[in-house]
């Protein structure tokens, strides 16, 4: 158990004492928490309302902003390895950006930061990038700061489709960063050798016995399950325990007979490149970045769509700077350059038109600027009740071998 996890064990009554009087160094706080726990007080309950962080915004005096984002999600100059857009932002505003690629997994990041958020301690980050369903959880628990939209005039460029998600109507707390599909990706040559075609169109093909042991599936429950549910004729946006169990049972048979080699995160891209697998359930942008030997499509029965968000976490010390950074990336020209590099869907209106001017071929890529026909087949993960989330996460963890 690390220090952060122990911090969570501090009972609510003594938390304010610890936060207000920071007489103890981090390590000693861990010790204090251990004492508390050892004395039998080691339980923690969420009292429902997270302590509001009373952090002063240092944006004016401290010209910086810290952003935790997913890996490979920001244009990089191939030669200098510099983040070109972030440098441009710094040149324009004088605000330095500390860009961390340490957001690898929604659950993991949340589990690591939650003890700090519970206590109202700053995370040392001004923007975090949870996926929509996880962003909903942050907002629900009061872990996100309300955006000052006056600082983000470019919010007008937000695509209408994203304006009113059920978990954040009016975009008071969050703005989409990029969006993408989870669907089938494959190695064209290897698929042709195995199945006689270089196009995957359905999940039936994906589970064709000829591909046994040659497929990898995303370890992210909410990305994978809609593909199976819709293929089984159920509605991925509205399902119950029976439908979920049906999907899990099917995947279990495919694990048992060795059809599915592994459940992975980003690593499936390496497995595809190394020839370890023929087909994957993966993310659209990754397959786009892999090049012309590989292809991606949503199954005809349906795939999933996710939207990664930008949130300002409670306790952020450079809130205004963070808002300025968000504003910068909502400029259509900037958004077009980002989309061209990361190959995901831009939520910014006008980005397609901008890209048309510079790279018409890319602007017509359906995975970056998806037509309605494709969007109709893309389901976003249903919002789980906490009971469902606990039950489904548990079943999923067992399925993937943990």
């Amino acid at each position, binding site marked *: *158990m690390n220090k952060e*996890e*122990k911090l*969570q*064990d501090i009972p609510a009554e003594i938390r304010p004492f610890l936060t207000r009087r920071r007489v103890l160094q981090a*390590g000693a706080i*861990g*010790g204090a*928490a*251990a*004492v508390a*726990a*050892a004395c*039998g*007080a*080691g*339980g*923690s*309950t*969420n009292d429902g309302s997270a302590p509001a962080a009373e952090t002063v915004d240092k944006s004016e005096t401290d010209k910086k902003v810290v952003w935790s984002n997913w890996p490979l999600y920001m244009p990089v100059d191939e030669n200098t390895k510099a983040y070109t857009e972030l440098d441009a932002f710094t040149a324009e505003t004088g605000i330095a950006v500390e860009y961390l690629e340490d957001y690898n*997994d929604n*659950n*993991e990041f949340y*589990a*690591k930061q*939650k003890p700090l958020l519970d206590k109202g301690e700053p995370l040392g980050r001004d923007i975090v990038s949870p996926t929509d369903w996880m962003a909903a*959880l942050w907002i629900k*628990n009061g872990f996100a700061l309300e955006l000052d939209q006056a600082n983000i005039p470019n919010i007008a460029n937000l695509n209408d489709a994203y304006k009113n998600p059920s978990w954040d109507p009016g975009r008071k707390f969050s703005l989409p960063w990029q969006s993408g599909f989870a669907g089938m990706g494959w190695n064209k040559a290897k698929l042709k050798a195995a199945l006689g075609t270089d196009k995957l169109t359905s999940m039936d093909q994906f589970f064709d016995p000829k591909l046994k*042991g040659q497929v990898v599936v995303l370890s992210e429950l909410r990305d994978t399950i809609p593909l199976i549910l819709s293929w089984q004729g159920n509605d991925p946006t509205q399902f119950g325990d029976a439908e979920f169990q049906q999907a899990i049972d099917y995947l279990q048979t495919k*694990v048992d007979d060795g059809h*599915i*080699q*592994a*459940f992975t995160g980003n*690593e499936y891209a*390496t*497995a595809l490149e*190394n*020839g*370890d*697998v023929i087909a994957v359930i993966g993310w659209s942008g990754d397959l786009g970045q892999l090049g012309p030997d590989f292809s991606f499509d949503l199954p005809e029965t349906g795939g999933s769509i996710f939207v990664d968000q930008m949130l300002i976490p409670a306790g952020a010390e450079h809130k205004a700077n963070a808002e300025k950074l968000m504003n910068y990336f909502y400029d259509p020209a900037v958004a077009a350059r980002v989309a061209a590099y990361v190959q995901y869907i831009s939520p910014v209106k006008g980005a397609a038109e901008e890209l048309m001017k510079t790279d018409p071929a890319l602007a017509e890529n359906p995975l970056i600027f998806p037509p309605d026909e494709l969007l109709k087949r893309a389901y976003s993960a249903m919002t789980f009740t*906490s*009971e469902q*989330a*606990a039950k489904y*996460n*548990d079943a999923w*963890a067992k399925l*993937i*071998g*943990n």
Partner: protein
Amino acid sequence: MSIVQESITAKPKKRRINRTPYLLILPGIGWLFIFFLFPLSTLLATSLQKPAGISPDDGYLPAFKVSNYSSALAEYYPQFFRAFLYSGIATVICLLLAYPIAYYMAFRARKYRNLMLVLIVAPFFASFLLRTNAWKTILSGDGLVVSVLNSINLLPQDRILNTSLAVVAGLTYNFLPFMILPLYTSLEKIDPRLIEAAGDLYSPPSQRFWKVVWPLSLPGVISGTLLTFIPASGDYINAELLGSIKDKMIGNVIQSQFIDLRDYPTASALSFTFMAVILVMVYLYIRKSGTDNLV
């Protein structure tokens, strides 16, 4: 050894309680107290907690829920078994590989000895994670190993990556230095004249080894196997990166319970059980083999 004994017998000074040794171990004891005993007691307390609500977001309440242990064990005994099986096999292979290397270094290498030592320690300069990831590429489907083995029909399955073979190979590779180094130190202490003497008394080479070298190297064998087996059985990186869904070890379960599911009581119960099992195994092992001359 003899020097120590001499100095003890040669010092019959006046008997006065010397406080210095106690003061010197104080920082060590304090360190263990804060960073081992305290966390351990939190772990124990956590392992007995009960959920306050349905979701992990509701937190956990202090309780005395012993059933956390039985349910965790009933659910995850295969991963426990696998952890000990894989690390056991890896330890045996490590011993078989390491002994000749250590023997060569101790008795034959001469001027290459230091070079060999450096080479054995060199992998530690790259991170554990990076080295294990490199094995992914080495063992990959289009990689050299698989294509060579395939061309001479030596591959039992059609792949190596994501099999138990890869996990055991990864564990063996990663923990081999922990076996070589203690073996080397105990072999290096052996006086070569003892072996010569055995030869002078017409002892054949195999007998010279089993009657002289092997018994004298036992302390190295014991510490080497412990240093390999204990961390290998708790390892989860190799199973995560090189294994399939059916090769997960107990470390994978604990990390997923802590990080993905935030089921702290189950994770703590598993950690605690794991530690207890290891402790019992090590205790029995050491009792059987003796600790007197453990390096």
